[in-house]
């Protein structure tokens, strides 16, 4: 237990000090949001209709940007060797790393949502709904993205190849995240159905992600 806590603390500390990751993520999120009014024109009704989609897209792409070095950094400095050898099950260690990444890079996005909601002309409920879906859904993005991050170690490859491998996996999360927010804003479907599917996806990825990542790391080190 204390081993996992130490790992989480370390990863968050590094993320906050080195920054890069978390801040670039938030900034990218902001860029996407700022860009949209220019793309769709100054039609406020349309903007607020697209709002959730834009925020979700931003979150997805931001997580993609920051995730790819989750394991490669540890691999390059040799930490990963020691983590694999340690008494902590690798699945748990992977989950802890993903959790730390989510806290450092995912949470800030959610905190930033209300500000961006203003830019996109979302009202209070809508913003709240989007924030809630992001809170429920971004863990799924992190935990599926983690699989790609682990593959990056196995393959000695990064960049776009990984994005290509991981993005299809995150499409369902995106669909239900947007659907739930849309439902909360404009109906007619109830909010609960897509939201519970979203939560189910998150839970499933919470299980699958660490196992797949650990399997890939275990078989991929050399």
């Amino acid at each position: 237990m204390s081993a996992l806590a130490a790992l989480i603390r370390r990863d968050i500390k590094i993320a906050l000090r080195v920054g890069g990751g978390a801040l670039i993520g938030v900034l990218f999120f902001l860029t996407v949001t700022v860009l949209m009014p220019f793309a769709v024109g100054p039609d406020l009704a349309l903007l607020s209709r697209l709002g959730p989609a834009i925020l979700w897209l931003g979150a997805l792409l931001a997580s993609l940007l920051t995730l790819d070095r989750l394991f490669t950094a540890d691999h390059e400095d040799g930490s990963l060797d020691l983590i694999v050898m340690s008494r902590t099950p690798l699945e748990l260690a992977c989950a802890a790393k993903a959790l730390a990444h989510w806290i450092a890079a995912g949470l800030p996005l959610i905190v930033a949502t209300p500000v961006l909601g203003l830019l996109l002309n979302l009202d209070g409920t809508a913003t709240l709904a989007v924030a809630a879906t992001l809170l429920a859904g971004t863990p799924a993005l992190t935990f599926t993205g983690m699989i790609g991050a682990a593959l990056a170690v196995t393959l000695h490859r990064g960049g776009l190849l990984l994005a290509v491998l991981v993005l299809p996996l995150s499409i369902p999360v995106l669909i239900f995240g947007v659907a739930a927010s849309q439902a909360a804003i404009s109906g007619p479907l109830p909010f609960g159905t897509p939201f519970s599917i979203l939560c189910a996806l998150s839970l499933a990825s919470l299980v699958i992600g660490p196992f797949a990542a650990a399997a890939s790391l275990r078989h991929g080190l050399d």
Partner: protein
Amino acid sequence: MRLSGRNLKCVRGGREVFSGLDLAATEGEALAVTGPNGAGKTSLLRVLAGLLVPADGTIALEGGDAELSLPEQAHYLGHRDALKPALSVAENLSFWREFLGGKTEDAGRCLAAVGLDHAAHLPAAYLSAGQRRRLSIARLLSVRRPVWLLDEPTSALDTAGQALFAALMRDHLASGGLIVAATHLPLGIDARDLRMGGAA
């Protein structure tokens, strides 16, 4: 305690690195793995550490903690130092101390033992090559593990550092530990030689 490997074979990148290799080391004994560049010393250590899967052969550790695997009872000191430049020396050490768990020593004392106590609050990015190596050695001291797997441990150490590390290894052996070290230089301790053939 006895570490043994029988008929080990290692294939990397589709090429056979070594095969039919036997080794054994008992409590209090050091095994110095020597051989030319590319002979497979590092590969052998990584196989023992569980980081490479041998293509053939078996590895056993008798007399250790039966519930733990060999890698879980071993320290691995490789070419890469497992240090995070953004963290301070003390933070780096205490992370590994907590993460590796088991029986631990006081972090400050371990830093003092390798002569880094004065640098405890520097970021690891500021360390010189030898200082990084010393910090890695402090990790070996801070958590008690019976088996030490060392890959060219004395590289980058100055003469005083090499003597100091030899003394630390002797202590470890005396307290019932076991060392397998790949090296091109004399380690400064009594060690049985395991010579690997091979190329380049």
